[in-house]
């Protein structure tokens, strides 16, 4: 039995008085599409930010395959890793942000090749060819020379997905990837995500798109107030949830 792609074990995170994550545990198998739904402030995004270590956890542990993230065990203590070591671990997960966060001073192609060239130090010619292929894959072959400001939100988000893929990550994190988009642009981004899911990429998707969760997720988690309220198959969670809070949330989202 291979180890799961991600194991989250009793993770807690507090911001001042706010308990953002409260003893959260979750296992995500290889190739799974894990959707996380829940009201705003429920800790969904914080969980993603802990997985890619933009926020350090207060307690608990997160493993990517067999590697403990952010810390190293010394006897009965967990010591924080150096910034360089954490950067090295982050290369293995790709993140797609709500606000795209494309590098504004770089063209679409420059955004994609930046990581492979500067972080992975791969040869330029090879990386450039790969960037062309990635842009084609997200349907933007003709936009390689465009700056982010010249692209629509949906196009920017697709470039951001290509940028994350260029690092050849084991895991992709999506933090509300369609929440900042005009309604008519949501479809093009979801289509790329559907395509990715079908290729067997392991994905964790924080989303308000219940339709996407129903169609693409292998498992859905409902979070509220920093806890996992319930989880299961999308059909179960989205159509006949057992918990009242889940039912209220799904009723309101419809």
């Amino acid at each position, binding site marked *: 039995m291979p180890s799961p792609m991600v194991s989250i074990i009793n993770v807690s995170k507090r911001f001042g008085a706010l308990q953002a994550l409260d003893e959260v545990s979750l296992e995500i198998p290889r190739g799974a599409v894990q959707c996380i739904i829940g009201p705003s402030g429920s800790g969904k995004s914080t969980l993603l930010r802990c997985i890619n270590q933009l926020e350090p956890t207060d307690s608990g542990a997160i493993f990517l395959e067999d590697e403990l993230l952010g810390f190293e065990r010394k006897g009965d203590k967990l010591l924080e890793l150096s910034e360089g070591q954490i950067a090295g671990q982050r290369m293995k997960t790709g993140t797609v942000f709500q606000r795209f966060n494309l590098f504004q001073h770089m063209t679409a192609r420059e955004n994609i090749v930046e*990581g492979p060239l500067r972080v992975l130090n791969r040869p330029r010619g090879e990386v450039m060819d790969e960037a062309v292929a990635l842009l084609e894959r997200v349907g933007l072959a003709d936009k390689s020379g465009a700056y982010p400001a010249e692209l629509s939100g949906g196009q920017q988000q697709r470039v951001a997905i290509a940028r994350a893929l260029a690092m050849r990550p084991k895991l992709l994190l999506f933090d509300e990837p369609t929440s900042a988009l005009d309604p008519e642009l949501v479809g*093009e981004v979801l289509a790329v995500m559907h395509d990715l899911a079908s290729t067997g990429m392991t994905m964790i998707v924080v989303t308000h798109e219940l339709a996407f969760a129903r169609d693409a997720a292998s498992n859905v988690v409902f979070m509220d107030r920093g806890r996992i309220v319930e989880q299961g198959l999308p059909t179960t969670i989205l159509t006949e949830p057992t918990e009242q809070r889940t039912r209220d949330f799904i009723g309101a989202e419809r």
Partner: protein
Amino acid sequence: MRSAEPGRNAGSRGEIMEQNNLSRTGLAPTRGERKAIANLEIVPRRHLGRWVTAAVIAVLLALVIKAFAEGDIAWGVVAEFFAAPAILFGLVNTVVMTICAMSLGIALGVVFAVMYMSPNPVIRVVAWGYIWLFRGTPLILQLLLWFNLALVFPTLGIPGLIEVRTVEFMTPFVATLLGLGLNQGAYTAEVMRSGILSVDSGQTEAAKSIGMTRLLTLRRIVLPQAMRVIIPPVGNEVISMVKLTSIASVIQYAEILRNAQTIYYANARVIELLIVAAGWYLIVVTLLQIGQYQLERSFAKGQTHRGNHKPGRAVENA
């Protein structure tokens, strides 16, 4: 004036507006009248006051020029010394010092700006202290301090390893470079800090997410975008620096003003040589302004929408 009746005027904003002044009789103009008005020629307003002001200024300016033309200035001497070897040598020294001091200032500015934003309080206090000290004292005083450093430390270096006599090391060039560079660094640090803060934190997070270290993120992602905010004030400071180098004349650094003074001590043509120096400063500053404009344009890339952007064109792909 008849008041607008809401029921009658519904859907016709024009009818409400025109009641202000268009109707002579108090009734709204008819459709025909409106058409006629729309065909009339438009006469732009003549700004008589502005023309009078401009004329007065032109006359005053002519008087000033006349005064200088008739005044006791030997323009022949200005022409004779404009490209004199001593003046050109001073010009080179001014330009060299501007480049060196500004480079030192920018390098120190980046370092101290980053230190100022460090999570470590000791590093923050050091950066704060540097900015406080060098912004809080006059530049001319700092130059004199550096130049006279030998009075405090007769020798400089690591004892037993490298040692130099301070008087020999602290030439007018070195003293000026340290004085201007360290002073500039304190000002530039503040400019750099505001530039770095102007870059959205999402950019740093995206850079981290592809595995970039802090230093690489700063160099590749944050600073290039901060440049848009940094270039205009730094450009102004380069221009100030050209002129600030003239202060170094008090510690015998042979820049333009110093050399112009040396000449007029000999020939007593004070105003003529000051005009020569002023002319060169203006030439250098003008060239720098052109350079600044070009640089601002090149760092603005990716910040503006260009012609062929069609939002939402790719929807069909979904």
